[in-house]
């Protein structure tokens, strides 16, 4: 938090990393120096009628070049505005914010579970894990092959794919890949739609993987991103709520009340 800054950053590159997604590369030395994998930035959007910033995970971090990247899809007015930004334009960023993924010491293998755009949170994490010589099994799921983040963006990871239409890897969801993954004695990192996270938790319970070893990157609507509005809560195991923006977004799965989580989303 204390290293968070609020500043305008120039878009040095805009590209389409996979179907339906946009990647923005921003010139942001301070952010690149401070950001950790799993942290997020609050991006100001100049869209008509929008007043709140939009939270986005830092997809990757390049301290040497002083650049950071974001990967997102268009789901509404803010992301539509971000997708319309051109190279050379400036975006006002607030961050880095929140708790990133905690990488324990040791050599335990890591299993990453990414559904849909959840994959956007992982390139930075994979680089960090590989740098620590941790074996990484990466389970990525998408609707169809063209919507998968290219393997080159997850270099060093043992990539296993699932697509709803079977156009790449296993035909089915990323959850189907869990059975064959070395979950049991691994650190697990997950980001994706709530139903995917819930499926992961169920599987972990069946396989007796301690939830404390699973970290999930939560996505909830956010007002401030800094802990003042109390708008971003995730139900806490044992009662009360966690602030997704400051306690998270990356949270050990055992701190979350998954029953209430499901209600909040599907109730």
């Amino acid at each position: 938090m204390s290293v968070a800054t609020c500043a305008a950053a120039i878009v040095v590159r805009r590209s389409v990393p996979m179907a339906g997604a946009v990647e923005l590369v921003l010139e942001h030395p301070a952010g690149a120096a401070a950001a950790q994998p799993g942290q997020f930035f609050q991006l100001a959007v100049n869209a008509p009628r929008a007043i709140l910033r939009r939270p986005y995970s830092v997809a990757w971090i390049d301290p040497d070049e002083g650049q950071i990247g974001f990967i997102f899809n268009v789901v509404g007015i803010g992301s539509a505005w971000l997708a319309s930004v051109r190279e050379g334009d400036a975006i006002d960023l607030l961050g880095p914010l929140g708790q990133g993924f905690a990488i324990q010491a040791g050599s335990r293998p890591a299993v990453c579970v990414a559904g849909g755009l959840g994959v956007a949170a992982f390139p930075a994490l994979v680089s960090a894990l590989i740098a620590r010589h941790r074996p990484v099994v990466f389970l990525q799921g998408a609707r169809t092959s063209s919507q998968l983040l290219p393997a080159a963006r997850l270099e060093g990871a043992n990539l296993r794919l699932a697509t709803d239409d079977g156009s790449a890897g296993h035909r089915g969801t990323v959850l189907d890949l869990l059975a064959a993954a070395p979950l049991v004695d691994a650190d697990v990192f997950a980001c994706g739609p709530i139903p995917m996270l819930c499926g992961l938790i169920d599987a972990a319970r069946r396989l007796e993987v301690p939830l404390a070893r699973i970290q999930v990157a939560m996505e909830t609507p956010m007002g401030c991103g800094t802990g003042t509005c109390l708008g971003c809560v995730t139900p806490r195991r044992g009662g009360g709520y966690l602030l997704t923006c400051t306690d998270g977004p990356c949270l050990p799965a055992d701190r979350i009340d998954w029953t209430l989580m499901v209600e909040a989303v599907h109730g």
Partner: protein
Amino acid sequence: MADSRERRVDLGRGLHLHSPLLVASGTFGYGFDAPLVDRRALGAIVTKGTTLRPRQGNPPTRIAETASGMLNAIGLQNPGVEHVARAFAPAWAAWPLPVIVNVAGESIDEYRAIARRLSGVAGIAGFELNISCPNVARGLQFGVDPRLAGELTAAVRAVTPLPLMVKLTPNVTDIVAIARAVADAGADSISAINTYLGMAIDVPRGKAVLERGAGGLSGPAIKPLALHAVWQVAAAVPIPVVGVGGISSVSDALEFLMAGAAAVQLGTINYSRPQAAREILDGLTAFVEARGVDDWRSLTIRPARVPSHA
């Protein structure tokens, strides 16, 4: 900033602010977060609504964006008055910035108990009574009934020597009647306004976006409504009025000061533009200095009756 002693804001009972900008309750926590807001630009901090016992607040989803606005139904999540007195007040006592505690309750006794507990505690500069809360006994909000609002104000007034600001809800037919009632009951100042009742529906899911169904609307969308409320109230009561509602620019703040506000609170804007407080104070200062005005109050364009809309 230029000589601010000359331009101090007097909110009564010895509460003098060096800046006419406050941060609105619920948009600055208890003053420990939001490090990017320049506190030197602030005249005072108003805390999150504080209740007698800790409250966990409402289940998610708690917020939703609307056109130039934001809906919230936080449910007064807060650690309770005891924690505020023990964990927060000592830190506040060391700050140059006065901290005003926003007080919420479900009965007059609760409000009174909170005010009693905090009165005399170092670090507590005053209270802002959030009267937009449902009165469990009477089954309606304190803030919508002049008699209830007056009773509540008088009851709290009786137990504290600290400056007392009463925050009005705009969800009433006649806000002036409420304002007069709380002024007569001993409020030192009035803040206007709290959020407007609103709602959003998630069409694909076919249910209210907010788990609570309804919520309070804030942000630029409500500014014209808040300004009108302040314009009416400032004309009707002898005590200072603090304007709040959708302020996000120097010009917005000037509109409220011109409408008769003695000071203004910045709320939702703090979320998206932490630098707003500093920019707005600098802009206000430049404006009054260009006009050679030596007092914020002299910006007012009151008195003037606004005929009601036809």
